[in-house]
């Protein structure tokens, strides 16, 4: 977008003039000119494109730094970026998912940003979960783009119709209430779970595992799936096969399909990303619009209201850090988006108000516009409370992708009764430990 911008033409003219003058003075002008004339290369996935463009235009006008913005679809963003890294394509600043951080940092494609005080000064405003999610091996690799977590929803009038006054606080209560709703003929499968083998699956699984007080790995990074993880899988297996409160079709239901199913009013409970609340409670987009409420994640017997959170952030490549001047410009760009622009968290607020993307910057919860927006479809205080229980995925490693394929498969096999939960998790654990060993 900036390539044909008027601002850049003027800047180029100025730079050419400066270069010529410097050459005349015998300085090392040509290389300086060449470096400065090259715009910053900013790569994102195809989300909030209009918002990014408008915020970028303001940045270019304010700083005079040219930015070459490009985006790729989310579905194959990781593969596209890895290919670009390997091919040495010019990338300076980019959006990164916490899931890829270890892989990209270990490969040397991403560089820490914690040496730049202009960026780390925002850490105090961000939740610990988010700061942890942007860190790897003790170094911080970015500044927040957006953050979200899994949340538990219920359709209030469906519960009331079944004689239920209080939403569930535990997974056992979810079972009890779902059975009541089912027996009352209100919904055949009261609980909606989206457990198809797609990128969202690990988020759904992690949310259930964490709320059961479990985890996939221990402090040493070895597989630890015998307790809370097993409880979560057993709950799903029983819910599908014994209580029949979750549809067996959950293994073919992706996140988006699940959202549509819940929005159609055929389920009473759903586990969904927090940012979907806006769509679910919009009567124009959802048949249960205005009737859906959130409750803290149900707890397992040894669990808490813990849920899984995820983080997308602005990272900086090793390529840009080789050039001090470009790196300084990249820092300015990251700060403009991930930190404050003109003294406010403008971009995070913009994407929240425009598309409902979540944030983990605490002062934004006190922002009047944000509170007002939340009040139309949710409860900002409850969202903040649930966000406080969010935990980083404990399987984010450089071998995560390979293990994720196997783990998704074995969970589905257990749900389909092709394996017992114990056998399924044993296979998942073995695969994890094997991949960990190979990676080290």
């Amino acid at each position, binding site marked *: 977008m900036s390539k044909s911008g008027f601002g850049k033409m003027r800047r180029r003219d100025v730079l050419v003039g400066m270069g010529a003058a410097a050459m005349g003075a015998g300085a090392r002008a040509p290389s300086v000119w060449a470096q400065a004339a090259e715009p910053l290369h900013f790569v994102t996935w195809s989300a909030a494109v209009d918002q990014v463009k408008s915020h970028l235009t303001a940045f270019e006008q304010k700083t005079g730094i040219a930015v070459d913005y490009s985006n790729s679809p989310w579905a*194959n963003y990781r*593969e596209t970026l*890895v*290919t670009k*890294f*390997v091919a040495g394509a010019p990338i300076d600043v980019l959006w990164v998912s916490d899931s890829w951080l270890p*892989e*990209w940092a*270990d*490969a*040397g494609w991403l560089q820490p940003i914690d040496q730049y005080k202009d960026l780390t000064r925002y850490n105090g405003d961000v939740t610990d979960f988010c700061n942890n999610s942007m860190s790897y091996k003790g170094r911080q690799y970015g500044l927040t783009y957006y953050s979200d977590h899994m949340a538990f929803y219920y359709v209030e009038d469906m519960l009331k119709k079944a004689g239920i006054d209080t939403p569930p606080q535990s997974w056992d209560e979810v079972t009890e209430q779902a059975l009541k709703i089912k027996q009352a003929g209100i919904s*055949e499968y009261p609980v909606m779970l989206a457990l*198809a*083998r*797609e990128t969202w699956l690990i988020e759904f699984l992690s949310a259930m595992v964490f709320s059961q007080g479990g985890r996939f790995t221990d402090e040493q990074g070895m597989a630890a799936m015998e307790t809370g993880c097993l409880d979560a899988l057993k709950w799903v297996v029983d819910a599908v096969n014994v209580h029949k409160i979750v*549809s*067996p*079709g*959950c*293994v*073919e*239901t992706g996140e988006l*399909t699940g959202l*549509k*199913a819940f929005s*159609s009013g*055929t389920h009473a409970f759903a586990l969904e990303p927090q940012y979907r609340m806006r769509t679910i409670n919009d009567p124009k987009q959802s048949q249960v619009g205005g009737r859906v409420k959130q409750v803290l994640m149900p707890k397992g017997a040894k669990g808490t209201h813990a849920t899984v959170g995820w983080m997308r952030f602005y990272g900086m490549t090793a390529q840009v850090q080789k050039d001090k001047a470009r790196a300084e410009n990249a820092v300015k760009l990251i700060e403009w988006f991930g930190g404050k622009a003109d003294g406010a968290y403008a971009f995070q607020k913009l994407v929240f108000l425009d598309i409902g993307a979540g944030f983990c910057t605490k002062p934004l919860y006190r922002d009047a516009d944000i509170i007002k927006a939340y009040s139309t479809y949710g409860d900002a205080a409850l969202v903040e409370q649930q966000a406080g229980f969010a935990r980083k995925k404990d399987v984010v490693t*450089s071998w995560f*992708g*390979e293990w994720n*394929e196997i783990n*998704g*498969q*074995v969970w*589905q*096999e257990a*749900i*389909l009764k*092709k394996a017992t939960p114990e056998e399924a998790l044993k296979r998942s654990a073995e695969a994890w430990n094997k991949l960990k060993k190979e990676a080290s």
Partner: protein
Amino acid sequence: MTGLSRSFPGAAPRAWLSRRFNYEERSAYLLLAPLVIVLGGVAVFPVLYAFYVSLFRLKLTRPGRVPFVGLDNYADLLRDPSFWTAVGRTTYFTLVSVAAILVLGLLIALLLNQAFRGRRLVGALLLVPWAIPSVANGLMWKWIYDSGYGALNGALYQLGLIDKYVIWLGDPAKTLLLVANAFVWKEVPLAAILLLVTMKSIPADLYRAATVDGANLLQRFLHITLPSLRPGVLLVVIYESMVAVRHFDLFYLLTEGGPGDATNVAAWQIYVESFRDLSFGSGSALAYLLAIVTFALSYAAIRALGSRL
């Protein structure tokens, strides 16, 4: 002249070429050269390079660590039970699909070979599935099979054939056959056309003579039509087998290898290995093994059908 030609560089090779090939041969080679160069660049080189890559433990996310492992990638795959499961599943998918395509294609070809009112319209309508892009076809079947709002459940329910919605793609016992059904739907028109073209080439005299001799419809089909269709059947079997073995689109759009590993066929495994795990070494090895399986199936089809039909 001889002395003059010697004085120019390159004159000797030109003279050798003139002696070795006549004008027509030289022209033919010259005209073919661009095609050979392009094919060499876009087909032969990638195939050879993929084999070269398959000899390394090449994973894109581990730059700088690309050890030469010889044939270890192949050995690892051959020892992996999931590879053999995928091969078995691919073979099953291929056999079921190709058999259904052949039978349905033959029936349609027989129908279109008859003169009846509206034949052209029927022929045009039957081509529709073939004309639909693969991705659109996959998305359409995903909608049809959806257990919550799918057209299949809706139709069966309204016809009173089911009393509640059925889980289609989520049931591992049904999934592979449902994918095969979607594949057959798209491929049948091509098979029908190939068989119809072959059918049209059968001399009408043969049928007239057989009728005079008292052969009934079934006898005419078994003794004239079917043997004459051998080239068409062979073409359909070989082509559709190759397409089925390598088929990926529907598995990607409908099931992603699931539920569980119910549709984890070889082509899906190659995709996961190469483009999700970004393990190009083992992915290339897997692709080579799949190519060998494709070749073996085609060879078996030629051997079996070539002598019997």
